[in-house]
């Protein structure tokens, strides 16, 4: 190689990533304002504070979730995985719907360690309102108290129950989309793999927003963005280690824990994958889309330039956030078209 590059080669021969891509100007400015409210590195010691009543992620009330009466909000206790406790599903049905509707089966984010089934639900409800679709959000048990496979099995059990009770819920079982952001995106991808491999509910699509897919935590973007933005490599290690313990990064991690480990990505429902160019998950998200295509599947990939993790939720006003928020709805209209 005769050309020079900003990226170099380490003594051991591995590639050293170049300087990280810049944050989008508006996102960089927003980050200066919100950064002080976000732990630079998430640690397990912070969990009580992050999960408590004064959590930085304030849960919306049923009233707020109804979007001014557009949805009827209910909660249902349903059976969990075999031998495990019941799980709670938060269900939002379009008010006045008389025929079965499509449904977004939402799995919340929070690094596998925080959040509940109201976290990040408002954007899902806003898309669902446009689609006249229902939303079902699953309350799964969190790591580290519940390691793999507890969380993903909770999510899958909720999906199976939802599909089995579609009539009762007014849902068209042929138009269920699994959806999630961050850890929820990883769990949604895993649930899609489980549904395929177990002959479970036939999913219409999988919506994977900045998904957390790869426990190895060693992609160029993970290395490049270390110490920068939101949910950097150190936080990511905390999350994955909470879920997998000492097995994290080793040879025996299940694809249902870390979908990037799946060797076969064929036979999956159409995927929407998005991610910021300036976040840990960039390269694993791009790789997942590429491998779906290589397996003959259908995927739509958006890499938002200068986006940090969760940018469209934390700085929703920015021009790039507005574009990022519009893209999933546009895709949902297409995949749910009759």
């Amino acid at each position, binding site marked *: 190689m005769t050309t020079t590059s900003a990226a170099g080669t380490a003594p051991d021969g591995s590639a050293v990533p170049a300087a990280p891509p*810049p944050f989008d100007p508006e996102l*960089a400015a927003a980050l*200066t304002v919100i950064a002080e409210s976000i732990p630079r590195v998430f640690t397990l010691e912070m969990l009580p504070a992050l999960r408590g009543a004064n959590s930085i992620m304030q849960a919306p009330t049923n009233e707020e979730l109804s979007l001014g009466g557009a949805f009827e909000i209910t909660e249902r206790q349903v059976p969990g995985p075999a031998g495990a406790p019941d799980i709670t599903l938060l269900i939002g049905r379009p008010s006045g719907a008389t025929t079965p509707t499509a449904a977004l089966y939402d799995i919340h984010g929070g690094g596998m360690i925080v959040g509940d089934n109201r976290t990040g639900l408002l954007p899902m409800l806003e898309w669902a309102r446009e689609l006249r679709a229902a939303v079902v959000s699953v309350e799964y048990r969190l790591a580290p108290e519940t390691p793999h496979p507890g969380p993903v099995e909770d999510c899958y059990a909720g999906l199976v129950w939802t599909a089995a009770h579609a009539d009762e819920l007014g849902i068209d079982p042929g138009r269920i989309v699994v959806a999630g952001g961050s850890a929820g995106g990883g769990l949604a991808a895993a649930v899609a793999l489980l549904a395929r491999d177990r002959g479970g509910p036939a999913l219409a699509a999988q919506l994977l927003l900045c998904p957390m897919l790869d426990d190895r935590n060693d992609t160029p973007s993970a290395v490049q963005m270390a110490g920068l933005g939101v949910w950097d490599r150190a936080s990511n290690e905390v999350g994955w280690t909470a879920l997998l313990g000492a097995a994290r990064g080793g040879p025996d991690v299940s694809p249902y824990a870390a979908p990037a480990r799946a060797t076969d990505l064929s036979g999956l429902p159409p995927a929407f994958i998005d991610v910021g160019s300036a976040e840990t998950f960039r390269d694993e998200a791009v790789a997942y889309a590429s491998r779906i295509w290589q397996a003959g599947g259908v995927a739509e990939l958006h890499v938002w330039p200068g986006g940090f993790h969760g940018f469209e939720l934390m700085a929703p*006003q920015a*021009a790039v956030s507005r574009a990022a928020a519009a893209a999933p709805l546009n895709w949902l209209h297409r995949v749910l078209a009759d």
Partner: protein
Amino acid sequence: MRLAAVDPDASAAVRVIGYFDQLTEAGAGLEAIVRGAAVLTGCPARLTDGGRRISLRVAPDGSPGAPAGPPDGSWLSASASASTSTSTSTGADGGAVLWLERPGPAGPVEAMVLERAAAAARTVLAKTRGRAPTRPVDDQAAVEVLIDPGASPEARRHAAGALGLAAGTRVRAVALAGGAARIVPAADAGVDAGGPRAGIGTAVGLEGLPASWAGARTALRLTADGSDDDPGPRSVWYDELGGLALLAENVGSATALIPDELALEHAALAGPWVLPTLHAVATTASLRAAAATLLVHHSTLQERIAHAERLLGWPIREPDGRHRLYLALALRRLRRHLRADG
């Protein structure tokens, strides 16, 4: 956690300053700045600039759109005009103004946001003035791209297109008192007699406009109001300056006055007739022609010249003395118009 209107607590100032500093550092555009003002105050914000035909409005949810009507004078506002522009007149344009669609008085957060957002907008406007907006917002912006030596070839093509100037067209840059720039056809550089003082650059192709503009600014310094206090031509062609251009380019605010300039100022104190008389003597072919220009009798002119020669201390009826006088008058104009827009 999401970005929302800032509460007026102790850290509000730090957040607001950090937000707009970061926007500026990252090279954000005007809409991003207006959006920042709207989001951090929870109030619709606008940027208006009549001169550049800018009218931006952003709602607190970040959505941009065209304003429904003109700004209300009672709203909170801050000027975003550059305080010392070297190449643009504001005046009738009204200049750039950042608005919050809320009547005063401003709370601490609003005041801070207005100040910082206006400063950030000012930085962007100052940059895009000379630097090359990808698409000029009006003719004046397009002109300024073409006369900017730092503008990219692509920006120059856009600007030429916006002005309807085909490649190969011969043009001249014209520098007007007050700071405005014009581009005129090389063969028809007519200057409005009643208009502002004008320095006219050399004829060039479009790529030569930065050089033509530099010459036009030099020529502008040798123009005069045409008043008794500042007699001389209201328009000057760089092509005709000869060695005076060299003089102009080497006389600045740090250049020491020479005795002839002091003598000229001393003489000027004798009456309003002195400077027009000396200018006529220095620039006409004969004393008879000078008298006709001044609308005075030949003998009156002779008396005035004798008086002026005593005040100056050198004869001005012979070629050497007339040249000396001509240079002293030229130096006086150069000093009066040290800044090309002055």
